[in-house]
Every structure is written in C-alpha cells, then in structure tokens.
C-alpha cells in the first residue's frame, strides 16, 4: 500500500516538473532564435532575488495569485471551469472598496465588513453563472466569460464621479475614495518593504481548502460530483446543489483575491488597479494540480517570473521572456499531464496484468499439486 502511494506521488510530481523543464528548454530555444544569450536572462532573474524589495514583491504577489488559483481550483475539483474569476475579483474589490470608504467602524470590524462584502459580491457574480447552469444548462465557460465583460462595463459605469466614484483634484485618475485607516490590514514590516497582512490569511485559506475538500462530507460530495455527476447523484448527492455551491464558493474566494492589495496597499479602487489576476490563477491552478501545496509553489514560481522579469528590461533583454515562459508552461502542463496520465494508466494495467498472471501461475501450481 505504501509503495503504491509513493508511485502516485512521483507520478503527480512528474507532470508539473516535466512541464517546467519543457517550458524552460523551449524558452531557451526562443532566446537563441532571437539571437540572445540563452543563459544570461536567467542569471539576471536570479540576481534580482538578492534584493529584499523584490523578495517582498514576490511574496505579496504570491498571496494574491494563491487566492485567485484557489478560486479556480475549487471549480476544477467540481469539474467546473470558472473563467470568470477575473470579473468576480474586480467587481468584488470595487464594491468592497466603496463600502469600506463609506463607513467608519472600529478596526477589526471595518476590515471584516470589507472582506465580507468582497466575498458576497464575488459569490453573487459567480452565482449567476451557477444558477444559469443548474436551471438552464448554460455552460459556465460561456457565461463566466460573458460576465467578465459585463463586470467591466458595470465597473466603468459605477466608478464615474456621478455614481460611486470620484476624481481627485488635479488628477486624471478615478477612484472610489480612500478607506479610513481603521480599514487597513496591518502588515509585516521588513527591510525590503511590507508584506501584506492578508497574505498570511491567503496561505491559511490553503489549509482550510485542504481540510474542507479532504476531511469533510461536503468535500467528499464535491469531489464525487466532480468525478462523475451521475454516480454521485445515484449515491444520494444533490448534484445541482453542489454545482451552485461550488460556484458560490469559487466566487467568494475570487472576491478575496483583491483584498491583499486593497487592504494593504492602495486602500482604494482606481483605474490602475491590477487586472488579469484571475487568468493567471487558471495557469497556476493547472500547474499546481488543484493541490494546496502545489498551488503555493506554482504561485511562487509565477510571481518570481513576473517580478524578476522587470530587471531584464534594464539589462536590455525584453521582459516578455517571462510571459513567453508562462504561456509555454500552460501548453506544456496540458501535454505533460496527459502523457503522465497515460503512462500511469499503462503502468497500472501492467501491474494488474502481472498480478493476474502471478495469480494464474499460482492456481496452476495448486492444480498441479
């Protein structure tokens, strides 16, 4: 039994590792083809790591990506492809910022309110796709993509000074007003800057995610429905309800993805609030195999690529190298997982075959004796 577990772990690791190695090699090929050194860019990126401020940037970004990837992973576990994490994240952080700036409560309550609003808005926005899927059979892939676009328009309208936004005097920026200091999440002050306090909440959520999925009845139902909806239904799980619940949870976590930045840095939602976090989350969830530890390392890797690529620019290398690498990782991940899966299947068949053969031999011996 123990041996089997080891095999499974190795096979599990082989997928992402194979993908990374392939992506690495292909990136080097791209570099060579464009007449650049295939090694120096990596060296430069590693050098960047020595700066404490870059380290802090990477950790902070890891927390943000981690939350976004968890949101995607919850859906994946249920066989739901929530592409709308980005829209849920933006809408949630915007409305949370509006509420946060409008009220003035004692510290912890203020933060709690902002966080709850973000979760609620994210869940509701994802819930639309969930309801459409359960009642009308609309594919969540299509509906969440469209909801992304609707969220963009809705935010653009709401942030107008005539509605919920404001334009600071002398600025061409639009924002939602500053959240009073009681709504700021204290961070960890280091040499290189401040690690957002919410980053730690993000990592703690990874534990909650693991526990809920693997150690609760609900998590079992969720995984069972994801594996086979009809089988789960036959054993008494309300599959439709699970779809809706999974969508709501996914959206709520997506709503949290904006919190590290909002509570720790900007304290307002503006036109230059980061976008695209939800899409990076999909890459990371894929690479991390929906496993909380895997997602953590995948987030760290992507954050590393993102933040150290900046140094390439100044050294005369195009920093798009990091983006090329991220794109290659996505392709390589899909291919390598399929390869590893097939290999695992073949191995399993072989093993079963061997066992059967051994059994047959034994039977023969018994019969002969």
């Amino acid at each position, binding site marked *: 039994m123990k041996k089997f577990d080891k095999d499974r772990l190795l096979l599990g690791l082989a997928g992402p590792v194979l993908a990374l190695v392939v992506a690495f090699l292909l990136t080097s090929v791209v570099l060579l083809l464009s007449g650049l050194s295939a090694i120096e860019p990596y060296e430069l990126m590693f050098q960047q790591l020595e700066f404490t401020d870059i380290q802090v940037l990477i950790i902070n970004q890891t927390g943000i990506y981690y939350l976004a990837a968890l949101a995607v992973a919850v859906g994946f576990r249920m066989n739901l492809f929530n592409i709308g994490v980005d829209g849920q994240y933006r809408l949630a952080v915007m409305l949370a910022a509006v509420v946060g700036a409008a009220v003035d409560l004692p510290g912890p309550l203020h933060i709690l309110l902002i966080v709850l609003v973000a979760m609620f808005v994210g869940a509701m926005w994802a819930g639309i796709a969930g309801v459409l899927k359960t009642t009308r059979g609309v594919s969540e892939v299509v509906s969440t993509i469209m909801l992304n676009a609707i969220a963009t328009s809705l935010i653009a309208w709401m942030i107008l000074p005539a509605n919920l936004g404001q334009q600071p005097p002398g600025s061409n920026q639009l924002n939602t007003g500053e959240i009073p200091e009681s709504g700021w999440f204290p961070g960890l002050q280091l040499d290189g800057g401040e690690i957002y306090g919410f980053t730690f909440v993000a990592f703690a959520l990874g534990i909650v995610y693991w526990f809920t999925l693997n150690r609760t009845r609900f998590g079992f139902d969720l995984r069972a429905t994801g594996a086979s909806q009809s089988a789960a239904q036959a054993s008494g799980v309300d599959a439709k309800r699970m779809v809706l619940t999974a969508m709501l949870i996914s959206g709520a976590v997506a709503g949290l993805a904006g919190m590290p930045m909002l509570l720790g840095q900007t304290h307002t939602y503006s036109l230059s609030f980061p976008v695209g976090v939800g899409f990076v989350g999909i890459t990371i969830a894929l690479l991390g195999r929906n496993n909380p530890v895997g997602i953590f390392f995948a987030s760290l890797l992507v954050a590393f690529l993102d933040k150290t690529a900046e140094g390439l*620019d100044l050294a005369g290398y195009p920093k798009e190298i990091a983006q090329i690498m991220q794109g290659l990782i996505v392709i390589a991940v899909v291919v390598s997982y399929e390869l590893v899966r097939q290999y695992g299947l073949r191995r399993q068949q072989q093993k079963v075959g061997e066992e059967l053969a051994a059994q047959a031999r034994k039977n023969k011996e018994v019969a002969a004796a």
Partner: protein
Amino acid sequence: MRRITRIATVGIASTALALSVTACGSDSSSGSGSDDNGGKAAIAYDIGGRGDQSFNDAAYAGLVEAEEELDVQGTEAEPSEGEGDPDKVQRLTTLARAGNNPVIGVGFAYAPAIAEVAPKFPDTTFGLIDDTSKTGPNIANLVFNEEQGSYLAGVAAAKVTESDTVGFIGGVETPLIKKFEAGFVQGVKDTNKDVNVKVQYLTQPPDFGGFSKPDLGKAAAQGQLDAGADVIYAAAGLAGAGAIEATANAGKWAIGVDSDQYEQEGLAAYKERILTSVTKNVSGAVFNLIKSVQDGDPQNGEIRYGLEDDGVALSLSNPAFTEMTDVIEAVDKAKADIIAGRITVKTAP
C-alpha cells in the same frame, strides 16, 4: 520500475532547482546609490509602451532629443500588463537607484508611486506627466491644457462641416480623454450651435484596447460617417489611425491628435484628408525637464503647457487647411480669446 526512477531523478533534480529559485533567503540590501549627478535620465512608460505612435512615443522623442543635444544617457522602462502600484514603485526605485536624474513617469497612473518614491530620493527630480494631485519639493508635474487645443479643433470642424454633423472618437473613457471631448464639443457649439456632435468611446477601463486597436477606431468612424458626419476628431492613440483611414477613404476630413499626424509616415496614404492635428508637446516637456536638471536648476511644482507657449496647438502642415482663410481666421481668433481669458474652456463634458 526503471522508468519511474528516471522520472523521479529528473523530478527531484528540477524540484531542487525550483526550490533554490523560490526559497532563496538572502537579504543583501541593494545599495548602489551612485549619485553622480551627470548625464543619466530615465522614463517609465504608461500602458502601451513605446510604439504607440502617440503619447509614449512623444515622451521617447523628448528623451532622444535630450540624448542628442545634452549628451545624457537615456533609459526606458515598460510596464507589464495588469500591474499594480507596487510594481511601479519598484520600477521608479530601480531607476532612481541607478543614478538616473530626472526619472519621469509617463502618465497619471504613476502618481501614487511617485508620491511614495520621491521622498526617499530627495536629490533626484521626478517628473509626473498629466497629474497634479501629488506634489513635492522634487516632483515636477507636467500638465497640458488639452481642452484648449481640442476647442480649436472644434472651431475648425464646425467651420468646415457641410453636413452639420461632426464626430468625436475617444479611445478609452477616462477623465483625460473627456477633457478632449469637452473642449471639442464646446468649440463646435460656440462656433455654430446647430452642428450636431456624435461622441463615441471605444472601450471602458480597465480595457485599454481603445488606445491600441485600429480596427475599433475604424469601425467607430465608419458608424459616424454613415450617420452623416463629415469631420471626425479621434483622440485614441494608435486606434485613431483606423479612424483616420476610414475617414480618408470616405473622402471626409479627419483631425489627428498628440503628434502632427499629417507628417507621420505610417499615415502618409491618408495625409491629404488629415485636416489638422491637436498637438501636445510631451516631447518638449520631457526635454525641458531633463535640460533643467542638467542646468542645475531643476523644475518643480506644476509646469503647465497651454496654447500660449504652443504646449498644445493646432498644426498647420496641411496646405488644404491653411488655404481655408476663414477657418484659420476663426481659429486664430478663438486662440487669442482663450489666451486672453475671454473664453474659458471646460475640462469635463
């Protein structure tokens, strides 16, 4: 089993590599603060980066001019897609630490980052284009009266139109582009209030494709032409090129923006139909700031560029435009009125 071991070896080796990448704990503080106050200047671009044929390219032109005339060494840095304030802080810090002076943030998105970084480098001058909300002893806010130039474009459009319908195409619906709209609409209405102005924006933030996708500009211009517009003013960066193409092909008048688009090689095929352009002298502003630092008397505070110093202006390179003497007359009169304060141009529609 043999194959498994091989996969395992590769796996472990690469994991070790990945770990050494990610779990590095060195905290050597970076401190190469070379303060040689000679000859290094840097600009950090806004969304789109260099090659947008418009705003960022104008800043780059200023840097190049400084490199040639003042013998400074220029550095550029591009933003990443969807980045946040910490990335901008990081970028400006790196540039300042490398001894660049001045460090110029191209675009209002740099305001919070400059407010954070500037106090840490008191000997470095920071330029901030299009924003006056953050100020400091070593911050120069370079701003433009875009609405004044657009007002003149509105006067010209109202004089030239025969269908009494003109169009305005904005790239992305941000307050900055609304300044262009406000000035243009007011210019048209003040000249002839029977002229109908069609206003359209290509995208909404945070989708900034409206500054970079010519097909969007083309489709929007086509729609306005179909609705009877015969003069179209596009303030949409690279997307404006599509609007100019559609307008020129229909034989109507286009008005360009930021640079003198009549002179641009990429638009040479349509230049006959580019009536004029509302220019914004970003390159001059960048050059002036670098020069002031080189001269030892760095600019600071609000530096406003308007009609009076040609910081914004209406270009006169198309002979077809300069031949329309009554139009030129009206434009010149409006210009004089604005400078004298007899006309106040609104900054928001």
